[in-house]
């Protein structure tokens, strides 16, 4: 099978889901004839017709709110928010309805809605086009929050998300839209739901666990290569499902290595990484040789294009964090007061 970009893999997942299930719809701003500003929906309106793939008025709350109504009536809407920050007008519908209606109705109403959100920076985008908004969604019970790091995962996770009876916030790392990768053999014909809420060890290593997701998976793997040259054997865990969180896979890794660094683009304060640190520390405290560290964006609004490189986690910054994991202390032990 030939290599495909992440945008291409997503396009294929949408097409395959539309073809497989007549209740699947795709709509949003510019997703019809234009094919989306990132071309993720390219060709779908022509192939499946404008009844199933269509442009809406420009109103994000309207898009999510009507998707909720459609899902109540048995359809499976897959909607797009054009950029991360433009999902905020839909925040009320997402938080108070999409996330809570199943619970509110004791399971009688199921909302299989997927909200695709191109997120994160690194593409020279101006303000409001580069937010990493995962923490807003992961703190909201009732939502699943998923993000792929590779084209293959993009395909599989999106198919799983569309098949899921739960609402899914599907975060697409826009800086990786054009990076190519192979699709695994089976992914073209079936959605493999085993993958859906499990983290994946992308690279094994003995010394330290790098915990990453979405756009940072590639950066973490690069770091692991660089770290190998410095003598550190780095394990890389790709979370894929941010909520629910796969404690099992992550903790098994950290217990093995005794050290961990969490990486994400979003601002650190109150960011998703805080949860990872807290969970891992609670569950693996006695296996830890050093506090779990975070490498994240600064606690600032996303910067303009010319400054974004300073904000984003880099290989060097992750290596620095690894270096700070108290390698010398190892023999000392104990956390005396």
């Amino acid at each position, binding site marked *: 099978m030939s290599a495909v970009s992440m945008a291409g893999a997503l396009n294929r997942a949408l097409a395959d889901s539309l073809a497989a299930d007549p209740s699947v719809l795709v709509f949003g701003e510019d997703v019809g004839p234009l094919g989306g500003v990132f071309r993720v929906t390219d060709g779908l309106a022509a192939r499946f017709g404008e009844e199933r793939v269509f442009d809406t008025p420009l109103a994000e709350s309207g898009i999510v709110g009507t998707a909720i109504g459609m899902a109540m009536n*048995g359809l499976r809407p897959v909607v797009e928010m054009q950029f991360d920050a433009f999902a905020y007008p839909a925040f009320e519908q997402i938080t108070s309805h999409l996330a809570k209606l199943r619970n509110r109705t004791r399971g009688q109403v199921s909302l299989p809605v997927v909200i695709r959100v191109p997120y994160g920076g690194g593409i020279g985008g101006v303000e409001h086009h580069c937010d990493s908004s995962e923490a807003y969604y992961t703190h909201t019970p009732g939502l699943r929050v998923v993000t792929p790091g590779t084209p293959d995962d993009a395909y599989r996770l999106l198919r799983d998300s569309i098949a899921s009876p739960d609402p899914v916030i599907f975060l697409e790392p826009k800086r990786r839209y054009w990076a190519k990768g192979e699709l695994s053999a089976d992914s073209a014909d079936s959605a493999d739901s085993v993958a859906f809420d499990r983290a994946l060890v992308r690279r094994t290593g003995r010394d330290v666990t790098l915990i990453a997701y979405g756009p940072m998976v590639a950066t973490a793997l690069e770091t692991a290569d660089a770290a190998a040259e410095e003598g550190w054997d780095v394990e890389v865990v790709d979370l894929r499902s941010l909520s629910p969180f796969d404690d099992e896979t992550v903790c098994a890794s950290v217990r093995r290595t005794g050290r961990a660094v969490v990486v994400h683009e979003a601002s650190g304060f109150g960011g998703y990484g805080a949860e990872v640190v807290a969970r891992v520390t609670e569950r693996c405290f006695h296996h830890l040789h050093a506090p779990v560290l975070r490498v994240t964006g600064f606690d600032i609004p996303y910067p303009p294009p010319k400054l974004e490189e300073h904000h984003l986690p880099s290989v060097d910054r992750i290596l620095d964090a690894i270096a700070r994991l108290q390698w010398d202390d190892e023999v000392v032990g104990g956390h005396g007061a």
Partner: protein
Amino acid sequence: MARTRAPERTLLPSDEPLSLLRKDGSPVDDSPLAMPDDDVLVELYRRMVVGRRFDTQATSLTKQGRLAVYPSSHGQEACEVGSVLALRPTDWLFPTYRDSVALVTRGVDPAETLTLLQGGWHLGYDPYEHRVGPQCTPLATNTLHAVGFAHAARLKGEDTAALVLLGDGATSEGDTHEALNFAGVWHAPVVFLVQNNGYAISVPMSKQNAAPSLAHKGIGYGVPSVLVDGNDVAAVYAVVREAVLSGGPTLIEALTYRIEAHTNADDATRYRTSDEVAAWLDRDPVDRLETYLTSRGLLDNARRAAIAAEAEEFAASVRAKMNVDVEPSPDDLFEHVYATMPRHLREQAAALREELA
């Protein structure tokens, strides 16, 4: 610049609210609306009487601590009952917190209707059983659900209209705008019934909107609009019925009034006079129809008494049901957050069970 212009005439509401019955119960001569059939009129009356009794019963239950809170629709029965009876069985209703009477009129069990307000769960009924969306608390958000639902029906080839209820205050929310716009563009079969009861809690219309009427919003979306006397149940029934059958969207503003405070927790004397309330008591929707039916010989004393007795019986059954303590199970907390309980919730549920053991 060659856009087709829908004729303004059909999109703008009438200058005066449409009506079929005058305040004194006499029929309007030259109404453009068709008077509902006799049996429908009697049924409207019966449901209003039962609905009002249910409503006063619910208010009493708050005083006995059997309900956490209750927003009364006393005075708004023409809207609550007229609109719901105008629906076909296949249509859907999308109500708010104030629309408990609409729910029981639609056939939802009264105890299930009151579950939310009693505090046992967020919703007590199965929306699919009577085609009634969950009673909605965040204002105006149900308008979008209704539009999506109705459009989906269209896509599925089903003949289903959605009736969404909202208040005057809710029209100010952005969601109402987006819903009207989507409905206009999709020509979705949705009836937006704004029960303009003059207040959003304490805030009067003068601080809410400066338009000639709320129904004047429709034209901005290409949605036909109707202004109706919201205390005239025959008129409300007629306009909603027509809207439901139109196959497209309609915005209806019904002018009405809530006689009680916003909820039992509210103190309405802080923002309105008893004179104002008295003036509206004089426009009572139930009395008005009763006078008309009596004058037409459609309602005699025996029938009236039978309906009153039915209402009492209904109230008694509500009391009985609400006096049974149904305690929700703590397990429910975790059961329906996701379709399948994820591991972290299984752990939390287990921890709680252990705590309570």
